[in-house]
């Protein structure tokens, strides 16, 4: 059993670290979809950009809450991790103190979740950009 595991790990060579394999996820985190665009996947990048941006901006417009770095409640920490995935949008929101209002209506909580999901979807998009960069995905 141990041998088969060792053989499997030997069979898959480690992806070489190239400039694009570092740059694509980094740029993709900062601007959703940009990791695909710098690899000339224009339509995919544009769709990711529109989808993630729209979810995040709708969340803000719905009076959702932005989580800041904190060491308190576990759900607040997870909320922060989700939000921070949105990259520049998150930084812009924190810098302008957006998303800090009191939740005034029931569906405002959806706004909070929209922004967390936008960040988490951007993490997935970053991983996809990385896989394209290392040639794992066509």
């Amino acid at each position: 059993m141990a041998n088969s595991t060792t053989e499997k790990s030997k069979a898959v060579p480690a992806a070489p670290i190239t400039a694009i394999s570092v740059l694509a996820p980094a740029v993709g985190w900062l601007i959703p979809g940009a990791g695909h665009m710098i690899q000339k996947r224009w339509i995919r990048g544009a769709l990711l950009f529109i989808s993630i941006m729209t979810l995040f901006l709708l969340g803000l417009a719905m009076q959702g809450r932005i989580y800041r770095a904190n060491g308190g409640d576990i759900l607040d920490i997870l909320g922060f991790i989700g939000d921070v995935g949105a990259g520049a949008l998150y930084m812009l929101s924190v810098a302008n103190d957006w998303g800090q209002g009191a939740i005034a209506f029931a569906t405002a909580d959806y706004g909070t979740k929209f922004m967390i999901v936008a960040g988490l979807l951007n993490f997935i998009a970053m991983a996809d950009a990385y896989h394209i960069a290392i040639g794992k995905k066509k």
Partner: protein
Amino acid sequence: MTIALNHFSAAFVFALFASIVFGITHRDTVREMVRYGAYCFVLFLGGVLVAGWAMWLLRR
């Protein structure tokens, strides 16, 4: 600017954009992306409708 979506609209918007991202990131060819995105969208929205009706039945 404040937008107040109702529950179904919020679920629809969420399902639409999450499905687009899932489709693009989880499949390799364009055809598969469209099919998988549509599949996710139907599951998201279908799940909401089923859960909604289930809660309505439970309440009665």
